[in-house]
């Protein structure tokens, strides 16, 4: 009797310790989760303990995500951090979350941070934190980790061969997923800064978004 009670208590303690170990408590841990370019980032934000005044979070379904007005509106897809989130020495000054459909090219989703510094400096500091960073390599001006899925492949399985390459449209029936560090465009708030973002592009459907972007209404691009 006592043995089974003890075993039960031990299991509960072990479970609590495991949960504790999974809680994100540093910006570096959060960035590692982000670098997976999947649901882990949003799930980890549920219980994350981050420096005050940095990322403002909202509840989206069963997860949390940095608050933005709307990923579908260009002027509503950005959050500026009152206090930069410093990740391994890189100052992240904001977060953006954009989604759009381009006729004949498919759906495009971009989410990530805006950082101070050049792409090369930022990538060098962040690389040790990036999951599967052996594939995080320079490609022109940008530093990327790219992969591709064909519709019908297991939902969590990404191919690292047969990639479409930069500047090439994702073929119908495929989804490209890219983690990228690149020069921001010419407009504020990205002008003169570096973007650190994940993207899903191509035949991005609701069943895929339900898995990879639980912070979004999966049907926002239907």
């Amino acid at each position, binding site marked *: 009797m006592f043995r089974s009670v003890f075993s039960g208590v031990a299991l509960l303690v072990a479970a609590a310790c495991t949960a504790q170990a999974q809680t994100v408590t540093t910006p570096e841990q959060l960035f590692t989760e982000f670098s997976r370019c999947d649901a882990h980032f949003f799930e980890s934000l549920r219980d994350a303990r981050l420096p005050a005044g940095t990322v403002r979070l909202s509840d989206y379904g069963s997860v949390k995500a940095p608050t933005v007005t709307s990923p579908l509106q260009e002027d509503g897809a950005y959050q500026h951090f009152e206090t930069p989130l410093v990740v391994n020495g890189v100052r992240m000054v904001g977060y953006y979350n954009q989604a759009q459909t381009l006729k004949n090219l498919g759906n495009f989703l971009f989410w990530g941070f805006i950082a101070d510094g050049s792409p090369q400096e930022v990538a060098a500091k962040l690389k040790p934190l990036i999951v599967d960073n052996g594939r995080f390599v320079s490609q022109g001006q940008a530093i990327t980790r790219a992969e591709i899925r064909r519709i019908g492949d297991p939902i969590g399985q990404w191919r690292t061969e047969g990639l479409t390459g930069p500047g090439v449209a994702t073929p119908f*029936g495929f989804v490209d997923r890219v983690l990228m560090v690149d020069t921001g465009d010419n407009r504020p708030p990205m002008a003169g800064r570096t973007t650190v973002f994940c993207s899903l592009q191509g035949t991005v459907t609701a069943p895929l978004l339900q898995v990879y972007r639980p912070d979004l209404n999966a049907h926002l691009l239907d």
Partner: protein
Amino acid sequence: MNARWPALIVCSFILTGCAGLQNPQRANLAHCTNQLKASKAENYALALQEGDLCLQKNTLPASLQSLIYAVQADAHSNLKQFPEAVTAKEKSIQVAGKPDGRANLDLSAMYRDAGNPQKALELVRYNLDNGLGEAGKGTGFHMPTYYHLGLALTDLGQYREAAEAFSTGLERQPDYAWAFYARGVAYGHLGEKDDAKADFRKFSQIVDKKYVEDKHKAKLAEYGISIP
């Protein structure tokens, strides 16, 4: 399947138009014509019988032989003789001697009916791997490919991937009612009840009612939906 009828009619003309042939030969070829007629009349048992005689008593060119086997496969399928359907369809493809994406999709469906969804999936993947679109090599992939892909994945219990395949097909052909139905089934297995209900509702609004069977109505009824 309807797209095959113009080819059948042409073949029928060819087979019946051999006026210069001797009577025994004409009689033998008549079995081929009779098979096509019986199939069109949905007399599948007669179609099989005449088809067998056609193949036994004639030396047909490969394209016609392939067609006769394809009609045999269709007849077996309609009689729910699925292993025989698979055998006849494989023979049809083999005799034709050239890759045919659409024929592979038909064979995939027959393998599903025969209880072998893994082989069904392999056939669709073969098409995808080799650029074998429904209308030929390099013609791209449309609803039929993604629909059959989704059905094979559904039978394998890979419901998320199946729903994704149906969604992809619907991007090509947004008014194909049966893809909504099939995706509704996949969503149902995933516990996404709202999405399932939305798909079944859409299906009920656009489906051609003459093809709806009791089992489909029963599924819709689970979600409080009836065919208007």
